[in-house]
């Protein structure tokens, strides 16, 4: 009863003191562990620490308590960034999920050329957000893009100036981001659909369930894990979005499309308010951790 049984390890019971043999795996893992501890967790701690100092252009070690956080929440730009993130994030997640689910259900109907269609829906995921941003920036530009094209076709009064409009510009970011990621969400739902037991559905059909009822009552509820994964991935992408905003609107017009990631960057590196930048980064980390930690924890527990 006192022997420790290795979990699923291949390692045989200890034969004498083979020290080296025991140490090699840990030695192999140690550089990665060291890197992660220093460059992920050490750096997180350092930035967290800076958020309580009066660092400006360079890190300083004079502690100022919660002052940076108090000031951060009084800055109008931060308000704008947070509201933008909420608008963008909720629309982005909802539209991607609805579109992804719709396309996945349609693609699951024994479609000819399914492989080709899937490839087309998913290719934007292979592109950089900078490329996506540039393509949509010029396509939505009133001077040369959609508006100019429709006008040249004869509809002279057609107007589409969202990207130049402070109130509407945030929605152009939703358009481009949905274009980039919705195919990926489709693939996640399609994988979920293919994993559902056929027998249950056949039984329901024999019982005379209508197609809509079948999907609403039986199939979609079974896609819960896919919804969870999609939510986690999309929420975390939304919080981190930076490249797309830089390429598409540059945070503009004015500051109309600033988000926490662009706010952090400009306060830290161009406005030399490192303490406030660190505080905003800390809040970004906390929001991502609130989503990721329960998810990772449950995934790791299931695996055991």
């Amino acid at each position: 009863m006192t022997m420790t049984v290795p979990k699923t390890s291949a390692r045989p019971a200890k034969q004498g003191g083979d020290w080296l043999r025991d140490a090699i795996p840990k030695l192999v893992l140690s550089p990665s562990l060291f890197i992660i501890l220093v460059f992920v967790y050490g750096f997180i701690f350092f930035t967290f620490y800076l958020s309580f100092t009066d660092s400006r252009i360079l890190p300083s070690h004079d502690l100022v308590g919660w002052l940076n956080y108090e000031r951060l929440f009084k800055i109008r730009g931060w308000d704008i960034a947070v509201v933008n993130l909420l608008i963008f994030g909720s629309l982005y997640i909802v539209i991607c999920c609805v579109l992804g689910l719709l396309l996945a259900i349609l693609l699951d109907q024994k479609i000819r050329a399914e492989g080709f269609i899937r490839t087309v829906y998913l290719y934007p995921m292979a592109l950089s957000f900078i490329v996506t941003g540039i393509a949509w920036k010029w396509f939505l530009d009133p001077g040369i893009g959609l508006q100019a094209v429709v006008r040249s076709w004869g509809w002279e009064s057609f107007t589409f100036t969202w990207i130049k409009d402070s109130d509407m510009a945030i929605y152009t970011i939703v358009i481009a981001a949905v274009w980039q990621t919705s195919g990926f969400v489709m693939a996640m739902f399609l994988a979920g659909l293919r994993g559902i037991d056929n027998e249950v559905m056949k039984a329901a059909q024999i019982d005379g369930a209508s197609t809509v009822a079948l999907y609403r009552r039986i199939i979609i509820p079974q896609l819960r894990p896919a919804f969870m994964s999609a939510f986690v991935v999309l929420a975390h992408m939304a919080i981190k979005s930076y490249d797309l905003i830089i390429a598409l609107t540059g945070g503009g017009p004015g500051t109309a499309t600033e988000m926490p990631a662009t706010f952090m960057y400009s306060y830290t590196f161009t406005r030399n308010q490192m303490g406030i930048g660190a505080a905003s980064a800390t809040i970004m980390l906390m929001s991502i951790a609130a989503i990721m930690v329960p998810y990772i924890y449950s995934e790791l527990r299931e695996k055991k």
Partner: protein
Amino acid sequence: MAGSSASQQVIRTGGGARFAIYTILLIFCLYYLLPLYVMVVNSLKPLSEITSGGMMSLPKDWTTAPWASAWSTAQVGVEATGLKPYFINSILMVVPAVALSTILGALNGYVLTKWRFRGDTIIFGLLLFGCFIPFQMVLIPMARMLGLMGLAGTVPGLVFVHLVYGIGFSTLYFKNYYQQFPTELVRAAMIDGAGFFTIFRRIMLPASGPIAVVCIIWQFTNIWNDFLFGASFSDFDSQPMTVALNNLVQSSTGVKEYNVHFAGAILAALPTLLVYIVAGRYFVRGLMAGSVKG
């Protein structure tokens, strides 16, 4: 995802419904292809055709001049070098970063599945969370660390950064894959006296082809497409492609050469797009493994 055989047909469909399904699917194909179409046709026409409202038309005067300009003569930042030097920077950055993070990921996955020890789940959890942190949280200390290491503003500095933040995902891939690998084989080899590295080389590696492809494609796509680290840690002469492309497009001096911008955007997209077309199956597997695990 691998097979293309649809397993079920749930909607009992008459001809009309099927026609509607195909129509919707086709419309979305056009939606996803639209920006690519815009980029390609406009990179092949003179600027005047774009500014006169012809963005959606095919070129009247076909020309490859925008491509030549984007590649070798366009003004990027202060110099008229085109995107070529930055394309080379990206390659010099991507190749070592991908190779090193994949090798480390394979070794880590091997240890974490076949040489388990107390606390390994915690280590894996730490690695995993590192994949998802907002990198804003490490920008400030990393800038200082690169300075201390003498790597600030260099391509090797970028390689290092991408290696550090790429290990989490590559470990995740190999760990999940090696978990399915029969432990009995490893144990038998151990009893025959094979050591840690012999088993890795002779037994694990030969079976690792598919996951290595998945991992390499994922890392390649991510690192090639990165913008944040490139913008934060590079100098004028070490900028990766994405940063240079953004500078090309956002530069406020002179006439906006949209056709050159589109050509440049395609140049930046080409490597990852080619990989996707050639090995899309593996790309999708990587995406899924990064989200829906197992």
